[in-house]
């Protein structure tokens, strides 16, 4: 075998190895987290259906809970404690559940109504997460 022939064989083997040594991306295993269950209306996430898994591997979704009655359309009643968050209103009272869109909504402590126009009875919640304090629009609700 010539040297050039040997190198061609080796390079071909290398390319074949690269493609053969790895598996398809996706979900490899699933383990339920004990105590992670949250009742309807407490997730704070929008409902809908979609794909799941790494790189969007197809997996049928299902409908989540509808918004609690206390929240305006498009808002969900979020269980802050279940998400590991601590929040207080302007009077320093704890906030357990608040209407949310799943994102931080800027809020001016001096005038929450102007900051949070979509909410009917808004206040500014001071939310602590990972040592960080964020001020966001909030409205008490019942899940």
């Amino acid at each position: 075998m010539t040297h050039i022939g040997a190198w061609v064989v080796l390079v071909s083997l290398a390319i074949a190895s690269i493609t053969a040594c790895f598996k398809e991306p996706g979900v490899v295993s699933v383990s339920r987290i004990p105590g992670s269950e949250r009742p309807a209306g407490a997730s704070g996430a929008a409902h809908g259906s979609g794909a799941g898994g790494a790189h969007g591997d197809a997996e049928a979704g299902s409908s989540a809970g509808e918004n609690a009655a206390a929240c305006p359309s498009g808002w969900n009643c979020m269980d802050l404690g279940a998400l590991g968050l601590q929040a207080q209103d302007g009077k320093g009272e704890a906030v357990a559940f608040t209407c949310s869109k799943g994102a931080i909504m800027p809020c001016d402590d001096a005038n929450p109504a102007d900051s949070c126009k979509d909410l009917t009875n808004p206040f500014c919640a001071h939310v602590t997460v990972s040592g960080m304090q964020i001020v966001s629009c909030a409205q008490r609700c019942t899940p």
Partner: protein
Amino acid sequence: MRSVSFSVAVLVLATAGTASANTEINGLFDARSTALGGSGAGYLDSAGVIPINPAALDQIPKLALTFQGLLIVTQPQAPYTITHPDSGGGTYQNYETLRFDPVAAPLFYLGGAYRVHERVVVGAAVYPLLGMGTTSAYQPAPELMPKLEVTNDVAAGLGELGVPVSVRLLDNLSLALMWRATYVTTSATQPVAGGGAGGVILDSSGNPIYADLHVSGWGFTGLQAGVFYKPIPSLRFGLSYRSKVKVDATGTTKSKNPVDGSTVELETTQPFTSPHTFRAGVAWTTLHDKLMFAADFKFLMYAEAYESLDTTVVRNGMSMTTKTITNWDNAIALNFGTEYQVSDGWWLRAGYLYVTSAVPEDYAKAAMPPPGASNAVTAGLGIRIIDRLHADVAGAYTFYETEVDTATPDNAGVGIYANNTLQVAVSATYHL
């Protein structure tokens, strides 16, 4: 207050980039060593031996120049927390082990050594000690937030310039000392963790807030010492010690304030440590030097080097340090290899490599090497192209999977942490 507080969250994020350090990569310097399971302290006679055991440079007749190109392809896998809706309208969470696309990176080695005296060899080499990049994209709440995809991009590199001097004290005993300049670079783009359903902080449009970290730095205090001993012609021993080097990499972390959308830029300092490392190797030849058996043992003192990852950011003159407990363990590597000269100018090689991870199961994270241990099989061949030019080619496959069955506050949860890796290396050495 909001901006300063947000910088704390970015700071937490920034620590993940440094955590990408791999505990041991085989085959970074010479394809002959790669094919023999990463061994080499007791026999390697190319300029590729400089980072392994500089004292073995004494085997060079007059001049050696070595170049290696290495392609490393790895497929990361780790558990992530995924939120799903349940049938009653509520939610539940799983640890889901996600396997991502393989990631490839080329790494290069260039070294040279020259005999300036019948008893003295000097050299220089530039080489990587770590080179990795990983990209992952997943949906933290695929049904609840179908448009939310979170990506993590981490790239880290640790390279050195080594300048050794090897001195032959006795006819069969050489000592070496090498000065090392160490360069570290880390780039990481990762979402800022928060309390939303996706586990990340979102902006007012529902998109994840990311932090881009770029740090780099030099260290000039590294040393390496080596011993090469040949009691009889067929038996060679090598010993090597690399000193610990801690480099304070500096740069910036850029992100966006989730409340008002303004840019947040933080001066960032992130230390990176190459640990104290001891290495011993032996090589025995027989059948008129046609057959060689080699073995190396390596001990890496990660435990005292990585008790925690401390990252400091400065903004508006205020300095804040986040300490992430890592509690890494010391690691060992066992390398075994054999080489047989099948004909004039052709050598066949095979090897095996066992490496324990520095990362404990209780502290395993997706951006770190998996816990447990890896096993690698290696093979290759050597070719004498012309009298003074040798080429070597090697391949290695590393099996690196560990199932963790206990979730802790400091690990990513229950699941299978894996980093199976394929390496293909080609090197050439010119001798005089």
